C-alpha cells in the first residue's frame, strides 16, 4: 500500500467530494469532509517520512512511462507543501461545521463541502504532480471550485469578487498553459524532469525565454505577486470564513511552490537568476508588495480585508527569499511560506469565530471583542505577534533567515527594509489589538459569548503551533533548508 500513497493523496479527497455531492445532507457532508481531511495529513506525513528515508518517490499514473504518461513525483519540497496543505485542511475541517451552518444557506451546504474537497484535491494535485499540463488541470480544478466557494460569501460583493478572481485566474492559468505549450514545442515532453533535462540544449532560444515569461506571469497572477494581486483582497474579504482561511493558508502557497518548481527545478536557478535579471525585478516587486500592500492594509475598515492585504505583503517576503536564490534566502522564503500559512489560518479562523458570534467584522462592530472572547482574540493576537515577527514565535524565524540572507549577499539596505517593514505590521496588528481590548464594547459585542469549543480548539491548536515552531524549528526551518538545497541543486 505504501507505493500507492501518492495517488491516495489526490484520489481520497476527490472520491470524498463525489460522495458528498451524492449525499448532500449537511451533517453527512461535514462528516465525510472531516474524515477525508483527517486522513490527508496522515498520508502526507507518511509520504514525507518515505521521502526522508528513501529519497524521491516516483509514481507512474496508470503504469505509463513518464515520457508519455503522467508522473507523480514527490521530493522533500513538495512533501513539505503536501503536509502543509493537508494539515491546514485537517485543522479547518472540525472548525467548519458551525461556521458553515451559520454562513451558508442550508440547501447549498452539501455543494459547499463538495467544492471544498475538490479544491483540496486540486491543490494537493498541483503539489504532487510532476507533469506540467497535469498541474494546469489541477490548477483549474482548484481555481474553479474556489470561485464557487468565494461566490457563496456573505453578501453580493462576494459575487463580484469571485467574478474578478475568475477573470484574473483564468488569464493566469492560460498564460501558464501557453508557456507550457512553448516548452512542449521546444522539448517534446510535459514531464517537468524531462523538460529540465532537455531544456539545457535549447535554453538560448527565444521560445524558452517566452515560456519563462508566460509561466512566471501566469503563476504570479495565481500567487498574487504585486502588482498582480488585485483579485485577492476582495476575494478573501467577502468569502465565507472557512474559505478565506483555507485559501489564505493554502492556495497562494501552492502557487508559490509551483513557481519555485519551475524557476529552480525546470529552468534552473543558474539560468533564471544568473543569466537573466530576475533577482532585481523580483526583489523590487517583493519590496513594493511588502510596503505597498502593508500600507494599504493599515487603512482598511474591514478586518478581514485588512488581513487580506497583509497576505499580499507577506507573499512579498516569500518571493523575496526565493529571489535571493541562496540557501539561506530560499530557506527563509520556504519557512515563511509554512509559517505564514499557520499564522493566517489562525487569524482568519479567529475572525471567523468572531463573525460567527457577532455577525459583522468591521472594526467599529467588533470594538471590545477581546474582553468578550478573550481566548479567540488571544489566539489571534498571538498569531498577530508572530506576523510581526516577535522573537519566540514562528514569524521571527523566517524574518531572521531573510535578514541574514540579505546581509550575507551584502545587501544591508535590504535587511534594513525588511526590519523597517515590520513596523507596518506592528501598526495594523496593533490597531486590531487596540480595537479589540482597549475600546468599550459596542452594542453588538456587549452580549456575545466566547466561541464554542469546537471552534476554539482548532484556533488554539494553530496559535500554539505558531509559538511551537518559533522554538522547535526542525519541521519548518530544518526541512526547509533541505528543501532549499534540493531546489538550488536543480534536477531532482
Amino acid at each position, binding site marked *: 500500500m505504501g507505493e500507492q500513497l501518492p495517488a491516495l493523496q489526490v484520489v481520497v479527497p476527490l472520491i470524498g467530494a463525489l460522495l458528498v455531492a451524492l449525499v448532500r445532507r449537511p451533517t453527512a457532508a461535514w462528516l465525510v469532509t472531516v474524515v477525508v481531511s483527517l486522513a490527508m495529513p496522515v498520508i502526507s506525513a507518511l509520504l514525507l517520512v518515505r521521502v526522508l528515508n528513501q529519497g524521491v518517490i516516483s509514481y507512474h499514473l496508470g503504469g505509463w512511462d513518464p515520457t508519455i504518461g503522467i508522473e507523480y513525483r514527490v521530493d522533500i519540497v513538495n512533501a513539505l507543501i503536501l503536509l502543509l496543505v493537508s494539515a491546514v485542511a485537517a485543522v479547518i475541517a472540525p472548525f467548519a461545521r458551525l461556521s458553515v451552518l451559520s454562513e451558508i444557506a442550508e440547501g447549498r451546504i452539501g455543494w459547499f463541502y463538495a467544492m471544498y474537497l475538490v479544491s483540496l484535491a486540486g491543490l494537493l494535485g498541483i503539489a504532487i504532480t510532476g507533469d506540467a499540463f497535469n498541474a494546469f488541470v489541477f490548477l483549474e480544478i482548484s481555481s474553479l471550485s474556489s470561485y464557487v466557494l468565494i461566490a457563496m460569501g456573505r453578501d453580493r460583493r462576494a459575487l463580484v469578487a469571485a467574478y474578478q478572481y475568475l477573470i484574473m485566474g483564468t488569464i493566469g492559468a492560460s498564460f501558464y498553459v501557453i508557456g507550457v505549450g512553448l516548452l512542449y514545442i521546444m522539448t517534446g515532453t510535459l514531464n517537468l524532469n524531462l523538460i529540465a533535462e532537455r531544456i539545457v540544449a535549447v535554453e538560448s532560444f527565444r521560445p524558452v525565454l517566452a515560456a519563462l515569461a508566460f509561466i512566471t506571469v501566469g503563476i504570479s497572477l495565481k500567487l498574487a505577486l504585486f502588482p498582480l494581486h488585485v483579485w485577492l483582497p476582495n476575494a478573501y474579504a467577502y468569502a465565507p470564513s472557512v474559505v478565506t482561511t483555507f485559501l489564505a493558508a493554502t492556495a497562494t502557497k501552492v502557487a508559490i511552490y509551483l513557481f519555485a518548481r519551475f524557476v529552480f527545478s525546470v529552468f534552473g536557478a543558474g539560468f533564471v537568476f544568473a543569466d537573466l535579471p530576475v533577482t532585481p525585478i523580483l526583489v523590487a516587486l517583493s519590496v513594493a508588495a511588502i510596503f505597498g500592500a502593508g500600507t494599504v492594509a493599515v487603512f482598511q475598515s474591514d478586518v478581514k480585508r485588512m488581513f487580506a492585504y497583509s497576505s499580499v505583503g507577506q507573499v512579498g517576503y516569500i518571493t523575496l527569499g526565493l529571489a535571493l536564490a541562496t540557501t539561506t534566502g530560499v530557506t527563509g522564503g520556504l519557512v515563511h511560506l509554512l509559517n505564514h500559512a499557520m499564522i493566517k489560518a489562525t487569524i482568519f479562523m479567529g475572525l471567523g469565530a468572531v463573525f460567527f458570534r457577532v455577525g459583522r467584522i468591521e472594526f467599529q462592530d467588533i470594538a471590545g471583542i477581546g474582553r468578550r472572547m478573550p481566548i479567540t482574540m488571544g489566539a489571534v493576537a498571538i498569531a498577530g505577534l508572530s506576523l510581526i515577527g516577535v522573537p519566540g514565535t514562528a514569524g521571527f*524565524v523566517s524574518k531572521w533567515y531573510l535578514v541574514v540572507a540579505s546581509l550575507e549577499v551584502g545587501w544591508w539596505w535590504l535587511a*534594513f527594509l525588511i526590519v523597517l517593514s515590520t*513596523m507596518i505590521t506592528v501598526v495594523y496588528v496593533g490597531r486590531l489589538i487596540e480595537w479589540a481590548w482597549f475600546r468599550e464594547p459596542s452594542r453588538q459585542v456587549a452580549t456575545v459569548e466566547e466561541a464554542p469549543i469546537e471552534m476554539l480548539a482548532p484556533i488554539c491548536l494553530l496559535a500554539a503551533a505558531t509559538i511551537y515552531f518559533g522554538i522547535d524549528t526542525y519541521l519548518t526551518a530544518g526541512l526547509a533548508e533541505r528543501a532549499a538545497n534540493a531546489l538550488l541543486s536543480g534536477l531532482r
Partner: protein
Amino acid sequence: MTSGTLIALALIIPTAVAVLLPLFAGRPNVREAVTLIGTVLLFAVVLSLLASVLAGERPSLAVWTVVPGLSIAFAIEPLGMLFATIASGLWIANSVYSIGYMRAEQAPRQTLFYVCFAIAIASTMGIALAGNLFTLFLFYELLTISTYPLVTHRGTEEARNAGRLYLLMLLGASTILLLPAIAWTGIAAGTLDFGVGGILGGRVSDATLGILLALYVFGTAKAAVMPLHSWLPAAMVAPTPVSALLHAVAVVKAGVFTILKVIVYVFGVDTLAKAGTGDWLLYVAGITVIVASVMALRQDNLKRRLAYSTISQLSYVVLGAALFTPLAILGAALHIAAHAVSKITLFFAAGSVHVGAHVDDVSEMNGVGRRMPWTMGAFAVGSLSMIGVPPTVGFLGKWFMLLAAVGIGQWFAVGVIVISTLLNAGYFLPIVYRAFRRTGDGRPGVAEAPWPVVVPLVATAILTIVLFVWPTIPYDLADMLAGTSAAPVASDAATGGRQ
C-alpha cells in the same frame, strides 16, 4: 537543587503565576495570594542563585537551539544577578503596593493587570539571566509586548495614544536597529554568546565598532537615550504600580542593563576604549542627562517630572558605561541598583499622594506632607538619594563614576555629573519643601493612603539608606563585573570569548 533548575524556576515561577491568575479571576483574595506567594518564591530562588554567584560560581543553562546559531541559553554573571535580585526583590514590595493601590482605585480588569505584570517580571528575569544576545532579544521584546496592555490599561484616548507610541518606539527601535545589530554581530563574530572581554575584539574594524555601538544604543530604546525618550513620559498614563516597578525598574533598567552588558560582554570595554569610535556615546549620554533634567524642572505633573528624572538618571548609567573604564562600569552597575530603590520609592509616594490626597500635580501639593508624613518622608529620602546626598545609596554610584571620570581626565563627564546634581536638587527639593513647609488649602479628605500602599514605600525608603550603610552585595557584584572588564582579563578574551 542544581543551579540549572534554579534558573529554570526563576522563569517558571512568574510564568506559572500568570497562568494561574485567570483561574481565580472571580476571587480577588485568592488571586492576590497567588501573586504574593509567587513573588516570595521567586525572590527565594533568586537569592539562592545570588549565593552561588557570590561564591564565585557562574551557573548556566542551555535550553534549546532554535536554528543553528540561535539558541535559548542562560548564563549568570554578576551584572545580570544584580539586576535579577533588584527586580525580584522589588516585585514583592510592588505587589503589596499594587493590591492596595488597585483596590483603592477600584481599577477595572485587574486580572489582566496582574497577568501582564507577572509576564513582564518573567521577561525581566529572562533578560537578566540571558546567556546570549538572542535570548536577551527574545525576552526584551516579550517585555515590551507584555507591558503594552499595562500602559493602555485605562483604555482612554490618551492611554491608547501612549500605548501606540510605546509600542512603535520600543518595538520599532529594537527591530529596525537592534535586530540587524545582532544579526551583524552574529555574522561578524560567529557567535552570539556573551563572552568575558567581548566577542567582537579584532573581528571588525574600528569604524564598524562605532556603527554597531550606535545600533545597539539606539536600538535599545528602553534605555531612553535621547532622542528615543519620549515614550517614557507618555507611558506615565499607566497605573502607578506599573510606572513604579516597570518604568522605573524593570523596563528601563532592562534597557541600560542591555547597553551595559553589550559594552562589557559583546564589545569589551578595552576594545572600545582602544578603538575610540565609541566616544560619541559619552556626549550623547551627557546631553541626555542635562536636557532631561532641565525638562524635568518644567513639569508640573509629578509622575511626568519623575519620568524625566528617570530619563536623566538612566543616562548616568550609560554615561558611566561610556567612560569605558572598569571603575566607571562599577559605578554604573551600582547606580542601576541605587536608582531602582530610590525611584520606586518616589513613584510609590506619588501613587500614594494620588490615592490619599487625589493630587497629581506638584503645584497642588502644598501641605500634603503634614497629612501624609510617612509618604512624604519616604519621598524626601528618595529625593536625597536621587540628588546623591549621603547617607543614601544614590551617593555611591555617582561617587565611583566621578572618581573614574576624574581618573581618566574626562572633564566633560565630571561637569555633567556636577551640573546635573544641582539640577536634581532644583526639581526635587521644591516638592519636599512645598509638602512640608507650606500650608495646604485645607482640603478635606487628605489622609495617609491605606497600609498596603504605605508599608512598601517606607520599606524601600529604608532600603535606600540601608544600602548606603551596608552596600556589600551590590558592591561585590559590581566589583566582580568591573573585575571581568578590567584590562588583564581582556587579554584572554580571544580564547574566552569563543563558545
